[in-house]
Every structure is written in structure tokens, then in C-alpha cells.
């Protein structure tokens, strides 16, 4: 009977499988948000600790109007020397804090090069919006 090379055939693939499962389990889901009020333009930045919030920064927010629709621009800066692959999503709120058009905007994938700043823009779904949030996750 041929002797099985136990380490080569069984143990190595098993270790590899366990390692990849471990890596999958470590995938984090972080969210950072900025709220800009239409009249006061105050920023509230909420970040969870982790890779994304350590490296990505919301460096600027800007609001304007297209007719009676609120227009938002957010500048995101990569402070690290790595390419970062993340996704962002805009949420719109009315004056009472109710979210407008829930799930109206998709998570949008984005790639940012080392030390680069990128601006993302969005227009409110209707005239009742007077503040917005931007969420980021990896």
C-alpha cells in the first residue's frame, strides 16, 4: 500500500482553508458619517476604529442648491500610502430628521490612490431634503 504523504496532501490544504476562513471572518464593516445641516452647515463626524477610519478622512463638505434641490459635495482624502477600495452612500434627511427616499441611493464603489483627494457629489431626491449624511464602508 502506498504511504500517504500526510503533511503534503491533508494538513497543508486544511491549514490554508482555515486561514482563508479566518481572513473572511475578519472583514470589517465600518461606517463613517457626516451630517451637514442646510442652514447651519455643522459637521458631525462619526468613525469607528479600524483600517478605513485610520486612513480615510472627510476633508471637506460643501452644500449648494440646484433650483430648490439641495446639492452636496464631499471631499474624501486618503492619508495612507496604499490604494483603498471602499464604498460610499448618500442619505438625505428632511428638516425633522426623517430619511427621504430610503434605499434611494446605492452603495457606490470607489478606488482612491495613495494620498489622493476625491470629491463625490449628489443631488437630493426632492425639495424637502435639508441635510445629508455620507456613509463609508469597506
Amino acid at each position, binding site marked *: 500500500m502506498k504511504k500517504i504523504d500526510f503533511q503534503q496532501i491533508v494538513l497543508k490544504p486544511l491549514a490554508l482553508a482555515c486561514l482563508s476562513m479566518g481572513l473572511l471572518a475578519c472583514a470589517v464593516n465600518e461606517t463613517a458619517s457626516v451630517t451637514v445641516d442646510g442652514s447651519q452647515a455643522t459637521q458631525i463626524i462619526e468613525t469607528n476604529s479600524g483600517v478605513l477610519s485610520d486612513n480615510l478622512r472627510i476633508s471637506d463638505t460643501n452644500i449648494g442648491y*440646484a*433650483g430648490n*434641490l439641495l446639492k452636496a459635495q464631499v471631499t474624501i482624502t486618503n492619508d495612507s500610502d496604499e490604494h483603498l477600495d471602499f464604498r460610499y452612500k448618500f442619505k438625505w434627511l428632511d428638516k425633522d430628521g426623517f430619511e427621504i427616499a430610503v434605499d434611494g441611493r*446605492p452603495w457606490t464603489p470607489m478606488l482612491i490612490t495613495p494620498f489622493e483627494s476625491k470629491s463625490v457629489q449628489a443631488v437630493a431626491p426632492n*425639495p424637502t431634503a435639508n441635510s445629508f449624511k455620507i456613509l463609508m464602508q469597506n
Partner: protein
Amino acid sequence: MKLLKILTVIVASLVLVACSNKISYGDATSVETTTMGFGSTDLQSIAAKLVDDLIAFPPIVQMTSARRPVVFVDKVKNKTTEHIDTESITDTIQTKLLQSGKFRFVDMTAVKAVQEQMQFQMDSGMVDPGKAAAFGKQTGAEFMLYGNMSSIVKRNSDAKDVYYKFTLKLVNLESGIMEWAGEKEIRKSGEKSFF
């Protein structure tokens, strides 16, 4: 030998776990990368970008500040090699534009049903003639929304690159002038992984 037995049990249990049918609900707006083909994320990002472009375009802002123009949505030509339901994309765009309060639409997909209903109101003798919807009173569209979707696909032995371009145009039906055009480009790359 004992170790081999234990390992066999572990592998068998892993296989059993993998076979169990697990169903869960996900976020409909999350990024979907199951295959390289056209997906929900592409549809949603096309609609979001083009609607933003249209309602923020200065001449359109000026025009829609005092009135809500009536628009008719024509087909979007699918020039890609994939089967893509372009009506689903224009449906999403139409819904978002309607909800913005800036435009109104005439639905050409419902013309036959509307005609049948009006015929019923007129001819069946069951509807009060004073309350029946009259023929010849509908509003004609002022603008037409139409477009194209094309793709460029390139591949070699270990990588594939897909580029989509979606173009949408708004034309004044009476004058024939194109009032607005918007484009959304999407690039997707994939590599073959042997791990």
C-alpha cells in the same frame, strides 16, 4: 491512523455544513460583484448619476422652476453583447425624476390598457356619462427621453475587462433640439484566481 479518522470526520462535517440550505435577506443597494456581467449596482449607479445630472443641469433647473414638463420615455438601445433589461433602467430613472417633482410622464406602455378602459366607460352603458373620462383630452409629451447602452469587453488568458457606457438624451419633440445629454461610464476588471 487515528488522526486520519478525526480528520475524515471534520471534513465530512464541513461538507454537511456546506450542503445545508441557508437563505438570508441582503441589502438591495449593496455592491454586487457575483459575476462580471451587468448587475444591480450598475443599474442603480447609472440611474443615480443620470438623474443627478439632469435635475442639476442649469437650463433644466431654470425650466423646471416654474412648471413640470411632460416627458415620454422611449426605449434605450442595448448595443452590448449581453441581455440587459434596459426598460428596468429607464423605469428607475423615470421613478426618480417623477419623485423629484420636476417632471411628469406619459406612459406609452399603458396606452392599450387605457384605451380599453376608456372604451368600456364610453360604450358599456355601465358608467355615468357625466363621470366617464372623455376621449381627446390627454396631454401630449413635450420631451422625449431616449438613449444607448454600449460595452467594450477585452480579455486575455487571466484577466477580463468590461467597460459600459450609458448615454441618455432629452429632446424637445416640437423643435427637435436636444436639451440635455448625460453619460455614465462603468469599468469592471476581473482576474482569474486559482486559490
